[in-house]
C-alpha cells in the first residue's frame, strides 16, 4: 500500500506485517484430507504429468468469456498443485530448501479463494485434456480445503446450516408446511386435470423414497406435480419422508465433511421408512451426490435412481399414456453438467422430449460437451455475482439458446433453471421460458387412458 508523508512516498508491505494462522491450518487440513480421502492419487499424477499444453483453454467457457489467463483451468489448478508439490513431495521440499521456492501465505490463499469460485467445476476441460486431468476435482478439493480455513461463500453455508442444524432442509420448510403443500398440489392436479394423484407421505416400505431439490416445493410446483403424476400412472411405489425431503447437497460444492453428513441423513431417512431406493427429483447436483452415496455409506447404500431414468424406463415400457396432441412450441434441451458430463444421463430426456414435442431441436454443443448454465458449482446461489454469472459465464449459453430459436428451454435441474431464467432475462431473451421436463410431460399425460377419472 503506497503511503504519502511529506516529500517522500514509501511502500509499506502490509501483507508482511499481518500474521495469520490460515496457511498453517490450510496445510493441516490438506494433510488430513490426503490421509483420509483418495485425492492424493490424482494430485500425485497431475503434479508429475501436467504438460501445460493449454488445450483446456479452448474448452473452458470461463476463459472464453473473460480471456483472462488466470481463468485457464490448468493454470488455476496449478495454484493448488504447487502447494501439494511444495509441502507433500520430496522433490518440492528439496527445491524449497535450495531455491527459496513458493511458500503458502495469506495472499496465495486469497488468490485460491477468488479463482476456485470463478470456476463452476463443470468439468468440460477434462474432456479435452490429453491426460484427463480433472480440473473439476482440483476445484472441488481446493474449495474443501478453503472451507477448513473459513473461506466459504455465505449463501452455501447458510443453506447447509439450515439443513444440518436448522429445520432440516435448505429452504427451511417445516414438515407441516410440506403436508400443506402436497395437499395443495394434489388439489391443483384434481382441478386442472381431474386426476386423483396421491402424494404419499411417510409410507413405510415403499420402493422409492423421494428427494427432490427442496426448493421445488416453493418454486417449481409443476415439476413436482409432473413427478407425482408419473408415479401415479405407472403405479410406482414411492413416498415422501417428513424426516428429510431434501435432495440438495451443497456439501458437494464446498466440503466433503458436510456432504457426508447430508448423505448420511438421506441414508437414515431411507432406513427409517424401510425404503429401498433413493429417487432423486430433477436436479443435477442432487443426482450426482446421490450417486456418491456409496462413498459415505459403503456398499449397502441404497441405490440412486434419477427421476429422468425412472420416467424414461416407464415410457419405453408403455406405462405412460400420452395424449395425441404434442407440445407445439419449438423446444430445446439443456444438459446439466452433473448429469451429462460423464455421459451418465443424456439420451433418456431426449427420448422423452421427442415423444411429447412436435418440434425438438438440439443446441450445439450438447450431451457430454454441453456448456454449463454458468451457475454451476453452487455459484448460482450467490446473488451478489449475478452480473458475472449471467453476462460472462452465461453468455455462451444465451448464444446457444438464441441460435436454436426455441422458446422453451428444458432444464431438469433446479440450479440450472434458476440460472437460465436469469441468463435469459439479462441477455435479451425475455420471451424464452425455462421449464423442467416433468412440467411438460404433465401436460401430455392422458389421465383418462391411465384409468384415472380424467376430464377429457
Amino acid at each position: 500500500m503506497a503511503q504519502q508523508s511529506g516529500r517522500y512516498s514509501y511502500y509499506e508491505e502490509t501483507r508482511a506485517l499481518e500474521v495469520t494462522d490460515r496457511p498453517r491450518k490450510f496445510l493441516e487440513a490438506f494433510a488430513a484430507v490426503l490421509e483420509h480421502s483418495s485425492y492424493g492419487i490424482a494430485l500425485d499424477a497431475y503434479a508429475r504429468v501436467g504438460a501445460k499444453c493449454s488445450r483446456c483453454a479452448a474448452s473452458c467457457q470461463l476463459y472464453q468469456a473473460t480471456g483472462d489467463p488466470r481463468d485457464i483451468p490448468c493454470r488455476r489448478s496449478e495454484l493448488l498443485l504447487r502447494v501439494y508439490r511444495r509441502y507433500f513431495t520430496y522433490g518440492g521440499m528439496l527445491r524449497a530448501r535450495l531455491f527459496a521456492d513458493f511458500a503458502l501465505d495469506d495472499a496465495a490463499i486469497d488468490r485460491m479463494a477468488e479463482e476456485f469460485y470463478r470456476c463452476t467445476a463443470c468439468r468440460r476441460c477434462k474432456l479435452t485434456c490429453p491426460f484427463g486431468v480433472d480440473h473439476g476435482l482440483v476445484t472441488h478439493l481446493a474449495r474443501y480445503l478453503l472451507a477448513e480455513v473459513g473461506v466459504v461463500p455465505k449463501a452455501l453455508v447458510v443453506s447447509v446450516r439450515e439443513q444440518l442444524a436448522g429445520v432440516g432442509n435448505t429452504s427451511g420448510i417445516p414438515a407441516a408446511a410440506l403436508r400443506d403443500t402436497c395437499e395443495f398440489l394434489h388439489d391443483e392436479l384434481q382441478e386442472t386435470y381431474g386426476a386423483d394423484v396421491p402424494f404419499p407421505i411417510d409410507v413405510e416400505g415403499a420402493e422409492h423414497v423421494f428427494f427432490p431439490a427442496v426448493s421445488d416445493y416453493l418454486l417449481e410446483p409443476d415439476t413436482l406435480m409432473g413427478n407425482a403424476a408419473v408415479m401415479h400412472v405407472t403405479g410406482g411405489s414411492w413416498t415422501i419422508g417428513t424426516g428429510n425431503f431434501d435432495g440438495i447437497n451443497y456439501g458437494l460444492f464446498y466440503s466433503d465433511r458436510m456432504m457426508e453428513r447430508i448423505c448420511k441423513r438421506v441414508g437414515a431417512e431411507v432406513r427409517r421408512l424401510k425404503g429401498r431406493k433413493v429417487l432423486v427429483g430433477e436436479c443435477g447436483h442432487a443426482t450426482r451426490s446421490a450417486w456418491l452415496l456409496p462413498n459415505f455409506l459403503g456398499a449397502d447404500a441404497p441405490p440412486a435412481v434419477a427421476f429422468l431414468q425412472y420416467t424414461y424406463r416407464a415410457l419405453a415400457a408403455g406405462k405412460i399414456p400420452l395424449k395425441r396432441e404434442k407440445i407445439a412450441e419449438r423446444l430445446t434441451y439443456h444438459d446439466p453438467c452433473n448429469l451429462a458430463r460423464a455421459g451418465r444421463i443424456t439420451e433418456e430426456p431426449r427420448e422423452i422430449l421427442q415423444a411429447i414435442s412436435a418440434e425438438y431441436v438440439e443446441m450445439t454443443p450438447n450431451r457430454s460437451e454441453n456448456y454449463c448454465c454458468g451457475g454451476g458449482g453452487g455459484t448460482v446461489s450467490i446473488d451478489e455475482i449475478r452480473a458475472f454469472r449471467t453476462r460472462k459465464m452465461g453468455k455462451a449459453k444465451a448464444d446457444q439458446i438464441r441460435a436454436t430459436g426455441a422458446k422453451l428451454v428444458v432444464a431438469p435441474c433446479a440450479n440450472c433453471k434458476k440460472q437460465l431464467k436469469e441468463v435469459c432475462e439479462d441477455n435479451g431473451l425475455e420471451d424464452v421460458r425455462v421449464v423442467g421436463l416433468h412440467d411438460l410431460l404433465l401436460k401430455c399425460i392422458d389421465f383418462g387412458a391411465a384409468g384415472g377419472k380424467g376430464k377429457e
Partner: protein
Amino acid sequence: MDAWLDWARGPAFVFSFVFLLLGLLRHVALTAWEVAHVWRRAGDRKLPLGKLLRATLLWLVPFTRLRHRFWFGLTSLVFHVCILVVPVFLAGHVALWARGLGLSWPAIPNAVADALTLLAVVTAVLLLGQRVFSRATRSLSRVQDFALPPLVAVPFATGFLMMHPGWNPFDFQATFFVHVMSANLLFVLTPLTKLSHMILMPSTQLVAELAWHWPVDSGSAVGRALGKEGEPV
C-alpha cells in the same frame, strides 16, 4: 575424441538407459500401489471400466481428438509418431540392439526414417513456436516446457547429419558425441520431468476416476483429525 565417444556410447549410455528403465518402473510401481491402496479402502468399488478403457484408448491413439486446437493437435500427433518410430525402428539402431543384446526386430527403410526425422525436428520447432506465440500457452509454461521440445530435437537433427555426412558442416565424431549424449540426457530427464507421461499416460483416466472414490467416513475422519467433530456448521 574417440575415448569420449566410447564413454558416451558405453558407460554413459548404460547408466542413462538403466536410469530411464528404473525410473519408469518406479512410476509404474508407485501408481499400481496407489491404485490398489485407494481401491481397497474405497466405499464404492464400482468403476465404469468400459468408459475408462474407451477414454484411455481414445487418448493413447488420439486421431479422433483433434477438434479443439486443430493445428496444435496435429503438430503434436505427428511429433509423437515420429519420435516414437524413428529411434526404435531405425536400421542402424536395430543393428546396435542386435549386436549388444542379440534382440532383433524389423527396421524401416532409411528414406522413411529420413523423412520422419526431418518431420520430428520441424514439428518440435513448431511446438515451441506455438508455445511461445500463443498467449494462453505461454502464460502457463514452465522452464521445462520451453526447454524440452528443442532438446528432443537435438538427437534427431544430429542423427540426420550423421546419416548424411556430405551435408554435415561439423566433425562427424563430434556430431556423433552430441547425438548420443543428448539422447542420454533425455533418458535421464524422462522419469524426472513431464516426459514421464510416456509411461503414466495409460493410467491417468483411471486415476482421475479413482480419486472420487473415498473411504467410507472420510469426511468424519478428517473432522476428527482436525478436532472439529463438535464444531457447529
